């Protein structure tokens, strides 16, 4: 199916989300829509899927202009969408989820499970989407859940599949599997619109690439005719450093020592299993692993947010295993939390207030229990310019900022204290290329000033770019500690729990890897 969008414009008040956007997707092609957060990609897709109505412009399918008053209409015209956040019912089986809303029924409205199952079987055979129709969705890994979403779209006979940031939740191997599925889908004549901000993936899988910036299409190219850095500068509007420039680490004293750290969850299951590692001043240890393998708990244990079942954490020789979060902040731990909206910011407060969330009650921000609002605003302004936070003023509510600027607020706050140890979890998740570059540079700066840095990330690129040493964690245990030069495949395998030849030599020990 050929899709043509012409002159699509969508405004929200005075904000122009999409400005006369033209886009053509040919039958049988994987078309990537690339752009930073806020470039207007998602709005465009919502327009295409009937979730929003354009102010002007036309949507044409196979040369015929169509209107989608609601998503149902889009589905009937053969458009399927896989959202970034899955729209599945966790307690339903795969089959039930797939037929949800379009249930095949027998007499008296009884659900025809057999037909549902057969349909799924047929589709998964056809496209190599292996899923057990009777498995409960909540039991499935994220990658398989995504397959269910794709199945759902295909079972509605989707000819054009929109994938919104499909790889943000996947492991490297799952991503590869997804790409294979995408390729097999286009062979059958379907088209795929692949929305992302990850350059490598675009080049790996897309036939043609359209780049958007600030609501407008900047250009369309093919993956053969372009390079990562060209795409990046199209996205950002200036040339961008894709490689983190850093000197080799000059490790100093041991700053953080974690010995036999064990953490149990609320049900008493061990989620961090006797983990030991050391981080020296002036080096970055990257904790790599797929989401949910205990990294979050390690992060929280380091920052004093959860109870530790066993083990010891020492900072510069001082035991901080049971210290309060406040004591740890005062001792020089800077913390960029994984979920910045939940843990890092009070979005209903201003930038100025969020910049001093940790030091609001001490001089110069307060005196004798009274806040010095002038000083708060003043230092806020200073940090806004130091850390390149883009907003109208310090009195702007954080909720109105873009993800990149929100993250900068956290980074600014955390790095404004004396830093001996920086714990940063998924520091660039959901950020655009420009902000990623910025955050990475700041992290390397912190290292070069002699602080120890622990990066927790599920992004392989980030782990490889930043880590001086990489500890791969799987099911709560450190599989191995390696250097960044061992290569993506090896780390990808370790992330999946495969230790391979000789890799199992050191399970939890600390080594430089090289």
């Amino acid at each position, binding site marked *: 199916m050929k899709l043509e969008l012409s002159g699509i414009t969508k405004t929200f008040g005075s904000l122009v989300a999409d*400005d006369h956007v033209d886009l053509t997707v040919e039958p049988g092609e994987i078309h990537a829509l690339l752009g930073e957060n806020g470039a207007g990609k998602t709005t465009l897709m919502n327009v295409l899927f009937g979730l929003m109505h354009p102010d002007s412009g036309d949507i044409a399918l196979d040369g015929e202009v169509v209107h989608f008053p609601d998503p149902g209409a889009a589905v009937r015209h053969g458009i399927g969408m896989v959202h970034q956040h899955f729209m599945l019912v966790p307690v339903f089986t795969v089959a039930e989820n797939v037929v949800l809303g379009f249930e095949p029924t027998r007499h008296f409205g009884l659900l025809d499970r057999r037909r549902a199952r057969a349909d799924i079987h047929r589709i998964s055979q056809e496209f190599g989407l292996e899923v057990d129709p009777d498995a409960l969705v909540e039991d499935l890994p994220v990658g398989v859940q995504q397959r269910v979403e794709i199945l759902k779209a295909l079972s509605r006979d989707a000819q054009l599949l929109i994938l919104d940031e499909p790889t943000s939740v996947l492991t490297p191997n799952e991503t590869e599997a997804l790409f294979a599925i995408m390729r097999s889908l286009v062979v059958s004549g379907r088209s795929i619109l692949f929305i992302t901000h990850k350059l490598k993936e675009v080049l790996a899988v897309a036939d043609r690439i359209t780049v958007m910036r600030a609501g407008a299409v900047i250009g369309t190219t093919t993956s053969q005719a372009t390079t990562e850095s060209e795409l990046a500068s199209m996205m950002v509007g200036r040339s961008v450093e894709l490689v983190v420039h850093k000197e080799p680490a000059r490790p100093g004293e041991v700053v953080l020592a974690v010995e036999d750290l064990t953490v149990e969850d609320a049900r008493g299951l061990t989620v961090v299993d006797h983990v030991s590692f050391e981080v020296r001043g002036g080096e970055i240890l990257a904790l790599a692993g797929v989401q949910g393998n205990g990294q979050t708990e390690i992060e929280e244990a380091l920052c004093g947010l959860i109870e530790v079942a066993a083990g010891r954490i020492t900072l510069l020789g001082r035991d901080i295993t049971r210290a309060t979060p406040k004591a740890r902040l005062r001792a020089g731990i800077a913390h960029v939390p994984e979920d910045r909206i939940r843990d890092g910011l009070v979005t209903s407060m201003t930038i100025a207030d969020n910049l001093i969330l940790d030091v609001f009650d001490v001089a110069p921000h307060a005196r004798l229990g009274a806040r010095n609002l002038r000083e708060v605003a003043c230092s806020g302004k200073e940090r806004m310019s130091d850390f390149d936070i883009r907003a109208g003023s310090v009195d702007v509510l954080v909720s109105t900022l873009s993800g990149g600027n929100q993250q900068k607020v956290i980074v600014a706050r955390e790095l404004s204290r004396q830093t001996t140890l920086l714990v940063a979890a998924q520091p660039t998740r959901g950020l655009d290329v420009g902000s990623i570059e910025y955050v990475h540079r700041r992290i390397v700066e912190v290292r070069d000033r002699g602080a120890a840095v622990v990066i927790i990330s599920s992004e392989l690129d980030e782990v490889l770019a930043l880590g001086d040493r990489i500890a791969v964690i799987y099911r709560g245990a450190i599989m191995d500690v390696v250097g960044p030069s061992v290569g993506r495949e090896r780390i990808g395998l370790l992330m999946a729990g495969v230790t391979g030849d000789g890799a199992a030599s050191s399970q939890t020990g600390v080594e430089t890897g090289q």
Partner: protein
Amino acid sequence: MSDTGFTVPAAAPPASTSPVKANAPRGWSRFFHWMVEANVVMVTALAIFSGLFVGAVLIIATQANVLHAWSLLFSHPGTTVSVTFFTVGDAYRDLFTGSLGDPFVIGHAIATGHGWGQALTPLSETLLYASPLCVAGLAVGLGFRTGMFNIGGQGQLIAGAMAASYVGFEIDPPAIIHVPLCILAGFAGGAVAGFIPGFLKARTGAHEVIVTIMLNYVFLNLLVLALTTQPFQQPHQANAVGRTIFGSAELPHIFGQNLRVNVGVFIAIACALGVSWLLRRGTLGFGFRVVGANQDAAKVAGINVRRATILVLVISGGLAGLAGMISLCGSDYFLSAGYGGTVGFDCITVALLGRNRPIGIVLGSLLFAALNVGGRYMQASTGIPLDLASVIQAIIVFFVATPGLVNEVYRLRGMNVGQGLLTRGWAA
């Protein structure tokens, strides 16, 4: 925005990476905020109007003489209109003069210099009624602003009143010492009652709504128990009536003996200023607000969430206790079973009416008190039941709490009233 259509990458202008949202208040921030406030004022005014309108319909529908006049609609339309108009007009005139004062009496007092007592009595009564309501409203508003739902105003008020009355009848120092002691006792009594749910929530996660509601029953019945035993029971009394406090513990009247309004008004104003300062400028209040808005972020930022939880409820309970003290030492002078009446719940209404802001709560308590005091006068002079004033109160609050509905009914456009203010208070 940049050019439309296709452009070569090289020609693309070096735009900023993140387009700043257009509504960021710059130098206009003051004006902008004023506009938001003005909209709130607008909605509140319309809510009051709506309440009065529905009240008028109810008067028409319930008063026999008006109904009779309506039965003559076709034969004597003039009668229908005039009876309706005068009945509703009289009712609302009484509501007004009974709560704020009769313009003619006031004019007479100004002209002759006599009769001030009579002229100012309605206003005095309104202020008297408003003071404890305002302080208790602040207690609830402070809780709401910090994500804590203190529904235990009644119990805390009783605890404060009990403590104040004990200090009031047990010792008899000079007033200059006695009154401050009673104030402290009132606050402390309520604070203890607030500490219980605060501690339980901080320690065990017990939800404060349930605990505070249940504690209301505990304190209600504790009061009954106390009033039937020494030292609280009035000597030589079989009924559950408390001992009368000494004169030195009474809150001094502001305008002489004839007008009951007392320094409780000043206490209420001081509390409003205090809470306002705490939320705007106090580090303690900032911590409370952070905890109220996002507990996880507060924890990460090193704020002691447990301590804040306990302190909010202690202060909130203390304020409610202070409200009990104001009515005890200001006008009642002795305890009785079910002390405080509905103030412990009306204060929730007042907090909602005032959108949990101190200034709003002050105004809300005045409105609430005026409707109540005026409603009594209306009942006495026109026979329209006080319940009607309660209905009007309820409808006003109903509309204030649903700004979307007011927008809908009055077709307000571009109003930034949003669900924000109230629902944020109720959320989390």
